[in-house]
């Protein structure tokens, strides 16, 4: 298969005492007598700081092609997915044979345990044998960052990046007028005078290409077009004021904005009068405005004034959100929770806020105040629409520029090198903006170090001979790691940007793409071992997502829950990798059933990977029925990493669902793939 060495290392990670007792080194060697080129060696002591270096040396000295880690679970293992071999610019692939709970301590069940362990180890060896060598390449990165925005978040990020020695291009827009906290002039001056910062006023982003370390950006300013080559892009566009009067029904100079009130309180030049702050006037209050309101009310009361805050909700924002409430309450700020919007009665002599307290619905209250304070209504900037398009990033239901996929929070995105801070992805006040800016600076420094970065090459293997240039892969890549080149429209795969989810592989109709770590042949061989020597009860194969389901499985085992014995897990980087071809291969090879354990909707690290396979399984069920094969043989279940208990129940129930016996005949399969192949695409 590969020109590389065929020799495979078998590392015994026997931190589990039951496992080491059951499976001594010599027993393992004799068990795998028929396998060629196996080199068994025990794991070094993990308390030794150089343990990984020693494994690396053993690999190099013995010219090992790859390493099978024979241990309790990948989660508890000390060895990462691949071990870099420094002086050869390549790395040793690592496959975990996860023994998990299959170690039985009772004597009469040990035979059964050993049988299962042997199968798991052989599956790992089969998977490893077909793998391509991992080459490591060095790449140049642009230590320049484009920051887009004109408020706290943008300036804080620009300052932090410039202070860390990166070169910054700030595409500065006008600060939002309605923002509760005025932008600090000192901060603006500091950024403008920094030697590392170039400011482009009113620039808009027209086009973005490339990936982390090497983005190509086209900007247009009122006077000219600019082409930049940057290593990272930070979107820090702030919230936008939604135009309109503060209170549509009341036109009175005693009604002021929260921003103005805040300025007066901060400068201590307002009257010490009685104010009423009205929250929830429009479509629900901004969290950060509520925090500001409480903070300003507190200052006002401290300065001798009186303040009450009227609202339907009392939202808590930020790390010290609740603390502000407590301070305000003890200082005498009154909080009034109302059911409906309060009615304002105003004449030249008086200003009344009439309302019904939620606790006393039958009673009507009227409060006489000197001034009414209303926060301006804020929402996501209109610019986010075009930025989302250019950056190929989805927006959430409210229109903010970050997916609902919480894994990327607080500031990252599915595209490495693209960051979101401040009001572009959430409501934000200056303290929060500063924290987020710092988080971005930390991540940018690690992604764009000085000198070259080392990445694994050929994460996805591309065969131009089979490529029809349909661009399915480009459209389906959630991480922006595939681009057609400008001349021939051949695909360019950007290794630093690739997360190796394998979605592109699964949607390629020409089979031009192969996953660099998990080629189809590897899966095929693994399934072959998994389903070999069929006895009465055929095994069920479960493709489990490494981000979610695998963690839940390990958690279940660590909690002492047991999993169905006939179930064999094949871990995949993302459920999106599991194509029809793979599903059908498992059935054809004799699996009783095939299960895909993906992530919940909107919870997939690769955005739509799980959804893709979920709909794929649904479609396949129909095809199987048409061929007279029981559709129950394939199923998809979403599982989150923290759902260990649910998973165990789910697996036990699923085992009863699968029909007994083998899947389908080879003849049936040929017919099926011919049909399925025509329709495989990313919908």
């Amino acid at each position: 298969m590969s020109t590389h060495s065929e020799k495979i290392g078998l590392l015994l990670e026997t931190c589990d005492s039951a496992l080491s007792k059951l499976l001594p080194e010599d027993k393992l060697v004799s068990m795998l007598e028929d396998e060629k080129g196996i080199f068994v060696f025990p794991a070094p002591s993990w308390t030794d700081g150089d343990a990984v270096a020693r494994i690396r040396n053993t690999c190099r000295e013995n010219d090992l092609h790859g390493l099978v880690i024979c241990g309790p679970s990948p989660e508890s293992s000390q060895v990462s997915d691949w071990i870099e071999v420094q002086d050869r610019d390549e790395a040793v692939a690592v496959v975990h044979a996860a023994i998990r709970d299959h170690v039985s301590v009772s004597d009469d069940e040990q035979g059964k345990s050993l049988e299962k362990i042997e199968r798991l180890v052989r599956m790992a060896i089969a998977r490893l044998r077909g793998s391509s060598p991992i080459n490591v390449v060095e790449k140049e990165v642009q230590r320049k960052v484009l920051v887009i925005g004109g408020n706290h978040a943008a300036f804080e990020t620009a300052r932090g990046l410039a202070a860390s020695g990166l070169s910054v291009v700030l595409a500065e827009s006008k600060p939002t007028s309605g923002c509760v906290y005025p932008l600090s002039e000192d901060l603006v001056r500091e950024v403008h005078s920094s030697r590392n910062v170039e400011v482009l006023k009113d620039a808009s982003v027209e086009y973005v290409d490339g990936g982390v370390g090497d983005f190509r950006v086209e900007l247009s300013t009122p006077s000219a077009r600019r082409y930049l080559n940057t290593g990272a892009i930070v979107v820090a566009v702030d919230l936008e004021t939604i135009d309109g009067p503060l209170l549509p029904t009341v036109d009175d100079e005693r009604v002021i904005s929260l921003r103005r009130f805040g300025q007066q309180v901060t400068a201590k030049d307002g009257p010490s009068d009685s104010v009423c702050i009205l929250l929830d006037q429009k479509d629900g209050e901004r969290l950060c405005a509520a925090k500001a309101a409480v903070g300003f009310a507190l200052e006002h009361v401290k300065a001798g004034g009186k303040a009450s805050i009227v609202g339907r909700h009392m939202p808590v924002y930020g790390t010290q959100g609740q603390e502000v409430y407590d301070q305000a309450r003890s200082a005498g700020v009154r909080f009034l929770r109302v059911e409906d919007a309060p009615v304002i009665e105003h004449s030249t002599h008086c200003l009344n806020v009439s309302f019904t307290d939620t606790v006393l619905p039958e009673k009507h209250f009227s409060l006489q105040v000197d001034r009414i304070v209303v926060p301006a209504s804020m929402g996501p900037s209109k610019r986010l629409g075009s930025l989302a398009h250019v950056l190929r990033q989805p927006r959430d239901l409210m229109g903010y520029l970050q997916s609902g996929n919480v894994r990327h929070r607080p500031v990252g995105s599915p595209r490495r090198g693209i960051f979101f801070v401040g009001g572009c992805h959430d409501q934000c006040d200056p303290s929060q903006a500063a924290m987020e800016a710092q988080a971005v600076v930390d991540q940018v420094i690690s992604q764009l170090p000085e000198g070259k970065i080392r990445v694994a090459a050929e994460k996805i293997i591309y065969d131009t001979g089979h490529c029809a240039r349909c661009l399915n892969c480009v459209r389906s890549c959630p991480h922006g790691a595939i681009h057609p080149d400008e001349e021939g429209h051949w695909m360019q795969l950007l290794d630093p940007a690739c997360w190796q989810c394998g979605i592109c592989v699964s949607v390629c109709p020409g089979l031009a793409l192969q996953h660099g770590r998990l080629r189809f042949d590897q899966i095929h061989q693994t399934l072959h071992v998994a389903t070999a020597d069929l006895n009465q009860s055929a095994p069920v194969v479960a493709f489990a997502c490494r981000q979610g389901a695998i963690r839940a499985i390990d958690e279940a085992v660590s909690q002492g829950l047991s999993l169905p014995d006939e179930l064999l897990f094949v871990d995949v980087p993302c459920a999106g990798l599991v194509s029809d071809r793979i599903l059908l291969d498992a059935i054809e090879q004799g699996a009783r059933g095939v299960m895909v354990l993906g992530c919940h909707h909107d919870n997939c690290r690769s955005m739509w990977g799980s959804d893709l396979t979920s709909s794929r399984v649904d479609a396949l069920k129909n095809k199987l029925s048409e061929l007279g094969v029981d559709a129950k043989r394939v199923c998809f279940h979403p599982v989150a990493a923290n759902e260990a208990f649910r998973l165990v129940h789910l697996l036990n129930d699923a085992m009863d669902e699968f029909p007994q016996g083998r899947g389908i005949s080879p003849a049936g399969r040929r017919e099926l793939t011919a049909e399925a192949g025509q329709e495989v695409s990313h919908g």
Partner: protein
Amino acid sequence: MANECAGRALSEIDSLPLRRALVDEAAWLADLDYCMTCGKCTSVCPLHGYSSMDPRKIVRLVMLGEEQDVIDSDFIYQCTTCERCSYVCPMGVKIGNMITRARSMRPRDQVPGGSQKTADLHRSVGNNMNLKTEDWLETVDWMKEEAQEDVPSLDFPIDEPGSDYFVTINSKLPQYYPLDLQCIFKIFHASGVKWTMPSTWWEGTNYAMFSGDLDTWEFTLRKQVERVEELGIKYMAYTECGHGYFATLAGYKKFGIKPKFQVIHKVNLYAKWLREGKLKVDPSRNPQRVTLHDPCNVSRKAVMNGFPDIMDDSRYVLSKVCENFVEMWPNREHNYCCSGGGGALISGFAKARNYYGQVKIDQIDRTGADLVCAPCVNCHDAIEGLATEFEKPWKPIHLWALLANALVFD
């Protein structure tokens, strides 16, 4: 200008009398502005649901400047100030104290029921039942003679200076339950301590606190302190009364009274003497199934105010004097009021009391007890009222009665 405005200014709300009083008293009270309207107070209030008023509404009304509604409402006299509300309040709002304060704002002639009349008697005569000193001493003498038939050696002095214990008595005893006096005499006699029965200011209750008459509350306390100090006595043995004990300790704190003697609840004394072996008892004389009702004032409210409570000691005494003790649930500081607390027993809101009492009845029914030990005269009478009204098989009993019945004299 103010007339044109229907609205109320915050400064005006701040100067309202009840609010003012509560803020001035802040050392005793967490300001009600801390209220988060979570509603825990209301959810634990046994009176909640009886009328449209509840503890949370009371707090909000005072906060929003509608305190007159609170002062005029029947709720403040239906409330038994059991303070389950204050106990669960996450922000430490002292709702019971607020109720007492609101009662004090009521004109005296508009206090419902008999609590103000009782307080007035206490002030003028020195006890609640209008007993003249000679009538009192006659009753004491009579009961002493009766007790001597059982225990011939029993004798004690009246107004003896330099005694160790000044014994207070609930005036209902000489008036309605004179036989109970014998029990108390026997216990004190058996303990062998130096004790004396006062001829005046022996009242062991304080209805002025119930009616909200702060002035009389303070007056009666000072009179009693004066009397004890005149006699130079070290300890005041407070009778089995919840509110009297609480009113005494809380009143000392509230009015800045610093007595030269120590107040000890009788239940604490029983337990002490049992531990010291001064009292010899035979539990087989009390074979019935007995449960314990924790009076709010000496359990929850004592705990909340840092006063010595009797919760452990009453259980200890019961474990020694009866054979078959069963806990009520919830108990100790989570117990429900007997339904007669806070003056509710004589405030005239019988319907509210029975509504509230249903909770107590269920609690007692679940224990399957024959006797409900209530170390508080008020609780005792309220539970008796419930048993009669709802024809229940159980009846209340004082701890002194169980203890005296079990006493073994050599």
